């Protein structure tokens, strides 16, 4: 699904490498917990995977296609949720999801209703985004994220800045996305968020990515991340 070979990258204004000759292969239909403390390179990796950064050396492939050679829009094959994009507050839930579906040429009234139902947004469909709680707003953003129906979903710290109840709510929805058999990369520094969801973990340490499957997860790593934050889903 995603192959990263000898990836090397540093920001132009910095002397320190974020990634230094690292390789990893992300299997299809896996739920990847991308775990690392803040500032280590999670968002940088997400930016590389969505072509926001392309001045790296090495090779990054999605569906066996080198990202740098892809001519079509990357968002046709990657669904992404990041905390730095906000749905315009004046739109309603239904309008914002419809906008997303139309942007990806997927709009039918049935698909709109399907997404609204999948994310339990029926009673909120005509509410403005500004009237929603942060958890409901995130749910709406997740519904928009799924509107392009791609196989790869990247969630960059989706529970960031949410209160406890909203985190629980959001994780329930993410569980539903997992059940759709998509490849999901969930970036977080809080292991407890993904503890019950992940099939593989990618950690970033010493500028290297390392992938470990759930079966092979190291007890020490488990304890380390579990100790940061604990949350039941």
């Amino acid at each position, binding site marked *: 699904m995603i192959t990263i070979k000898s990836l090397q990258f540093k920001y132009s204004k910095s002397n320190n490498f974020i990634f230094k000759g690292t390789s990893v292969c992300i299997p299809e239909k896996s739920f990847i917990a991308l775990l690392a403390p803040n500032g280590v390179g999670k968002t940088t990796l997400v930016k590389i995977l969505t072509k926001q950064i392309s001045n790296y050396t090495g090779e990054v492939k999605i569906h066996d296609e080198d990202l740098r050679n892809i001519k079509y829009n990357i*968002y046709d094959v990657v669904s992404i949720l*990041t905390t*730095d994009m*906000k*749905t315009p507050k004046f*739109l309603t839930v239904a309008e914002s999801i419809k906008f997303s579906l139309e*942007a990806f*040429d997927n709009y039918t009234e049935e698909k709109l209703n399907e997404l609204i139902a999948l994310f339990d947004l029926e009673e909120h469909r005509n509410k*403005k985004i500004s009237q929603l709680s942060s958890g409901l707003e995130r749910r709406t953003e997740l519904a928009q994220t799924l509107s392009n129906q791609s196989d790869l979903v990247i969630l960059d710290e989706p529970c960031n800045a949410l209160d406890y109840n909203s985190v629980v709510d959001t994780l329930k929805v993410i569980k539903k996305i997992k059940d759709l058999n998509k490849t999901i990369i969930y970036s977080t520094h809080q292991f407890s968020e993904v503890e019950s969801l992940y099939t593989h973990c990618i950690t970033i340490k010493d500028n290297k990515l390392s992938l470990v499957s759930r079966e092979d997860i190291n007890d020490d790593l488990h304890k380390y991340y579990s100790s940061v934050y604990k949350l039941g889903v």
Partner: protein
Amino acid sequence: MNRLKKLIWFESMFLIKTKTIIYLLGVFITMLVLSIVFPMNFNSDIDYKMVLGSVASVIIQFLGIGLIGLLCNLFYRDKKFSYHYWFIKHKITITDIVRSRFIFYNILFSLLAGLMFIASSIIFIFMYEVNISFYSYLYMLVLVILSTTYVVSLMIMISALVVDFVSSSGLFILIWFTIGIINGVTPYLGGYLSPLDASSVQSGVISEISGIGSNFIAEIDIYSYLLALLLPVIYAFVFYLISIKFNKYKRGIN
């Protein structure tokens, strides 16, 4: 085309749902009142075509000031509310955003300016005897509409190039005054730079038709009439190209 339609829908929703439409309504009512009251300041010898000339000049020269709050904020708004990431995630390109705003706001405000001119001309029918030919009236109406595209395009360009609202609105005011100074010093050159000033070729033509105001352009001939219509459109297109090429999204919006 689909993306452009979506973006135009988005801008319409923005105007309606954020109640910006009320602000615009306020601007246009104020402009309409100004257009009606301003000619009344003149002496009693004033006639219908002079009134229309005055209305056209008021709209061309002062509409920009009223629209600062919306148009100079147009791209800063994206940064402030993080809309730009939302757009890009939806496969909307920077060119789409700039193009849609040029199309939408030019059509909207040109039509509103045209309607304002027509409304004023209807109101004054009850006060003065109509003494203007249909073609002269039509010419002034088209001139108002095309000059509005200059003002709107200039403001959108400034908003696309300058990082924040205070700077972009400040820059617009600065350009407005600078054009006035250039026109004052070298009216022959300045008159062709912008319709925003009283000594522009547009004002010269209006003065020639209506007999109101002063003509700073040495000789008004058929070419002046043509240039007065064409220049705002040419400038508006240049502003559009500059916005596409040098907008702040390309230079990193943050």
